[in-house]
């Protein structure tokens, strides 16, 4: 798309993604355990209203997304669940 090294294509995408409804990193942290367990057990069902802002936050915050992915893998191991399908549904920056 662009050869400008100061603004690579992926940076353009990440700068212009829909930030969604506001959710702070602190609130993401508060909810993330429920969210990843929901991905593990509910599959592709819609997320509950209280967790509705989580996908956009995780798509927009690389630090929270990195930590959520780790938590999902740990939770899956504890519960004896294959993490792959849930990991596919976890929003990525």
């Amino acid at each position, binding site marked *: *798309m*662009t*050869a*400008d090294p*100061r*603004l*690579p*294509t992926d*940076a*353009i*995408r*990440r*700068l*212009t*993604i*829909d*930030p*969604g409804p*506001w959710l*702070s*990193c*602190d609130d993401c*942290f508060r909810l*993330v*355990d*429920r969210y*990843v*367990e*929901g991905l*593990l*057990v509910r599959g592709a069902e819609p997320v509950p209203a209280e967790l509705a802002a989580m*996908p*956009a936050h995780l*798509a*927009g*915050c*690389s*630090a929270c997304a*990195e*930590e959520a*992915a*780790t*938590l999902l*893998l*740990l*939770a899956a191991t*504890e*519960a004896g*669940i294959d993490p792959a399908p849930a*990991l*596919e*549904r*976890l*929003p*990525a920056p």
Partner: protein
Amino acid sequence: MTEVSPDRTASRQAGGIPPPGEDWIADLTSSGPVREDALRRLHALLVRGARFQVSRMSAMRAVVGAAQVEDVITLAADEAMVAVLSKLPTFEGRSRFTTWAFKFAVLQAAVELRRQAWSRREVPLDAAPPLIEPRPSPDLYAEGAEFAAAVRDAIDRVLTPHQRRIALALIVDEVPIDVLAERLGTNRNALYKTLHDARSRLRTHLAGQGYDVAPPTRSREETR
């Protein structure tokens, strides 16, 4: 020591992964050998969570070095232990206790490793030069190049100096948000709010110019 949320049992029954048989809360709030054993198991759990987080951050782990990585894991687990015990009254049982506890170790380990990895790196905090190209380049004729130029222009014209500085540091220079927060004397929430507002401002401007801005949320399978 600890008051447990009265709706914990009900919440557990409402959904989520079925809790394991062992009752962490009861053990951690008891006394004597039972509590001592629970504390020992909790610390082992947090070490495991911290170690796993660090294991997934290979680039930063390589920068920090093996010996220091062990210190990061130990420090993260110890700090997570304090956090978990102090937050125990807030545990509502809406997730497994282990998942809830793991998140403290994961956060502490990730933040500490990012901090260590960037401890000797300079963070570009000065105002970056304008991104506007002085004249059209051949790239402008490539697919999407016009949008790229519009984004560059919007960054320079629409964002406040603070929004521009934060957005470019986080997205283009890929400074970890915790590191940037520490260098600027602020916190993760404030920086993410700035980025959130900058994205909204960019999208509003680009939409006003007739661009079909990116879809809301991309899952991992969509990014492949």
